């Protein structure tokens, strides 16, 4: 993706930060834009208000209210390996949208600041500049501000729009599939999301269609004291295929921002969905002040036989990441994959992994997780592989490697493996290794410069994951990691 040019940086603090360290967070700027925002706080009225603003049908409001009532009965989870300050759910504004929201098919009416913001993030939205080969849905705070290439997609019958539009235009599909994979009762944050989700992407690939473009959603939290609660729903009908990309950034702010998204994927017979994420939310400063709490529920269900869901993620941001993209392997011969690189620096906490639930016969899953911890951060892999008694002849292969840079960080591996079928085969391997001054000296003494040396080691460590990413994303991911690692090594 295109990097923003050296234009005027809006935030004083950002400038200082940039001078202090080469490891700047280059997406830390804020956008000055007129916002429509509802008052802070959460109650039944808030939900009615959100629903009303979005002009939602009655069934949608009812679903939200059910979720809200259920949420009230739940206790916020605590986590064994780290602590975070209490989240004030009444101190968040649950709906923040740019005024002059562009209408469908015409970004001309959009606030020019908004278009500029996405351009700085490397996501041109306008007709002239938009990225070739990738259709983008851009989500700014609570709402989707524009989706590109919709017409091209319509020709083959692919529906790619914001979920708000889908609720209006394809209610039968939304009604049928929303919550089918992640019910509102699933967990604390999923319940909260179900009650207040403001936007997100919706994607429907009809029977037999291979989506001609990569679909992508770009998330941006801008407003202070707001949370982002987007909801993404991807349905792949029989024999279809889609590759989906997701990117995220947020400004540098001293207070924490909450991001509690839900992503649901459903594949029917012979369908395949590939979902790639490069997550670079603001991670807080060196002292651990500020940053995004990234508490998301991502789950796919291989409903049909021979279907496949593949998650690839590069997690390099957020103060706290707590995320387990999972696959329920229900269809016989279905395949689940999870490829992850998680890099933590400063005082970041990442607890990420996956769940592979084998239900169907001959199902197989692969897990490759690479954790890199630097500074005083804490990086954990937590995963579950479960074979139900029905999962005859199923297989799993897991590999979890950690790399530590420095002596104040930690790397943990917590794999849970439950085998209830004697024909299951499972192999789990994990290791730790290091990147150190000695290694870098060895490489540089052969003529490589420091950047090349770091990049070579990181690429070597992460190559199994990077090769799963679409090409542009892979390049961006490598650059992102190099930038974050510089200064920690050597």
């Amino acid at each position, binding site marked *: 993706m295109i990097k923003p040019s050296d234009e005027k940086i809006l935030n004083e603090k950002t400038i200082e930060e940039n001078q202090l360290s080469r490891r700047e967070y280059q997406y830390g700027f804020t956008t000055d834009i007129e916002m429509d925002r509802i008052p802070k706080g959460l109650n039944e009225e808030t939900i009615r208000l959100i629903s009303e603003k979005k002009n939602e049908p009655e069934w949608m409001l009812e679903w939200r209210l059910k979720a809200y009532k259920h949420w009230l009965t739940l206790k916020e989870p605590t986590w064994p390996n780290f602590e975070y300050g209490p989240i004030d759910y009444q101190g968040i504004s649950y709906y923040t949208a740019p005024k002059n929201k562009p209408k469908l098919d015409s970004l001309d009416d959009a606030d020019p600041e908004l278009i500029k913001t996405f351009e700085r993030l490397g996501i041109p939205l306008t007709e002239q500049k938009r990225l070739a080969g990738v259709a983008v849905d851009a989500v700014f705070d609570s709402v989707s501000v524009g989706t590109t290439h919709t017409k091209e997609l319509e020709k083959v019958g692919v529906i790619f729009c914001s979920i708000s539009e889908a609720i209006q235009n394809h209610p039968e599909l939304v009604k049928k599939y929303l919550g089918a994979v992640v019910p509102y009762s699933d967990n604390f944050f999923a319940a909260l999301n179900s009650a207040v989700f403001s936007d997100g992407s919706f994607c429907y690939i009809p029977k037999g269609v291979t989506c001609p473009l990569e679909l992508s959603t770009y998330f941006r939290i801008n407003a202070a004291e707001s949370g982002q609660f987007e909801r993404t729903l991807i349905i792949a009908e029989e024999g279809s295929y889609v590759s989906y990309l997701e990117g995220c950034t947020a400004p540098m702010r001293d207070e924490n921002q909450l991001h509690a998204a839900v992503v649901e994927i459903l594949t029917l017979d012979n369908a395949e969905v590939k979902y790639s994420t490069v997550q670079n939310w603001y991670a807080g400063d060196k002292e651990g002040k500020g940053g995004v709490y990234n508490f998301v529920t991502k789950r796919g269900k291989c409903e049909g036989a021979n279907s496949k869901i593949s998650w690839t993620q590069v997690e390099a941001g957020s103060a706290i990441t707590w995320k387990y993209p999972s696959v329920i392997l229900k269809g016989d011969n279905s395949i689940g994959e999870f490829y992850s690189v998680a890099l933590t620096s400063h005082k970041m906490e990442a607890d990420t992994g996956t769940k592979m639930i084998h239900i169907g016969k001959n199902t197989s899953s692969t897990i490759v997780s690479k954790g890199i911890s630097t500074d005083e951060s804490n990086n954990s892999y937590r995963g579950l592989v479960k074979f139900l008694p029905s999962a005859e002849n199923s297989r799993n292969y897991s590999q979890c490697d950690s790399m530590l840079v420095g002596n104040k960080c930690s790397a943990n*591996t917590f794999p849970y*493996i439950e*085998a209830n079928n*004697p024909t299951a*085969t499972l192999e789990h391997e*994990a290791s730790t290794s290091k990147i150190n001054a000695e290694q870098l000296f060895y490489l540089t003494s052969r003529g490589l410069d420091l950047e090349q040396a770091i990049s070579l080691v990181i690429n070597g460590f992460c190559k199994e994951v990077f090769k799963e990413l679409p090409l542009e994303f892979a390049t961006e991911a490598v650059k992102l990691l190099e930038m974050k690692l510089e200064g920690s090594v050597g």
Partner: protein
Amino acid sequence: MSNLIENFKTLKNRAETGHPAWLNTFQDERFANFEKAGIPTVKNEEWKYTNLAQLSKEKFDALTDSEGAIPEEYNTYVNKDELNIVFTNGTLNNELSNITEISGVEIKTLKNALVENEEEIKAILAKNDIGNTDAFIELNNALINDGVFIKAKKGTVSEELIHIVHLTTTDKPIVNNIRTIIVLEESTEINVLESYVAFGNNAKYLSNSLTDCFVNDNATLHYVKAQTESEASYHIGNTRVSVERNANFKGFTLTTNSGFTRNELDIVINGEGSDGTLHSLYSIFNEQHVDNHTSVDHRVPNCTSNQLYKGILNDASHAVFNGKIFVRDIAQQTNSYQLNKNLLLGKKAHVDTKPQLEIFADDVRCTHGATIGQLEEDEIFYLQTRGVSRKDAIRIIATGFAEESVEEIKLKAIQSKLLYLLQPSIDNLSHGQL
């Protein structure tokens, strides 16, 4: 308060008096800790896969005098010419015991040690920085009935087997709180086998054992625990080991044909240049349950540890493995390895395994892994083409898998005993699936 805790409280009050005052105070405190901790439930992460709900409903009796006949198998298993310390139903059996002297090694019952080595035992009991504490450790401390104290004096190296036998013959639901203390002074090496056997007895009883091993500088302890107990029994065993500079702990645990077993083995590596080896074999069938918990805590640099837990599961048996490698920030150059391999043969057998790494030092090499699988069809087929029946082929290959483990034990005398205990579970493979 749960019935079981009430039950234990009554047993504690009924327990014999005549203890020194400090011991009574100590045991009161420990019982209070036990009450506070309570019986763990599956909500406790450490007990996620081992449900004590059934145990909580049981009612246990105090120890009774030795009763019940000595089973035939006992005489095959125990060589009466070797050094044996035998407890039947929790009480020292003088007739069966053969506490010969090994020069440089002090061996006695805990009861005697409490009189003869009072200060030493008092100090050891007071130590609470060895490995984890949990409800059952507290319970053992509160209710210790007897056990063994072994001390190898500086420089002693012995190849002789020290065999501690806990034999259950009664049909009463007794609860047996056994405590074993093994101290190796500098530059010593000894071999200890602790056997928990019932041989065909089907009684319901609870063994709650605690073994503490102190391996001092340059010493090597070969410690084997072997279990073949009643299928209705409960066995909760904690083994805590501290390893000092240039010392080695070589541990092996065999669980076969038992009831409900939970074994926790915690090693604390305290001195540089030392090694901890924890190997295990479990071979179970019917509805037997084995839960192995391990923890290796690397507190100093330049040490190694090695865990290999192998299991064969037939019928509807259930195995749990939860292994932890913990590397502290100063423990650089740690080399640690952990593997759990399971052969899942029974149609309803299941395995829950959780090998964990928690690492805070950057210059270390740690690997862990777990495998769950069946026998290689190629291998079975190969044997079949040579005229072996399918069932026999399975038995032969599984035996190989098991024996390979046992052969790593140093003393042949121990190897042959373990193979003897293994036999019933191996024979059982012939009536398994496939």
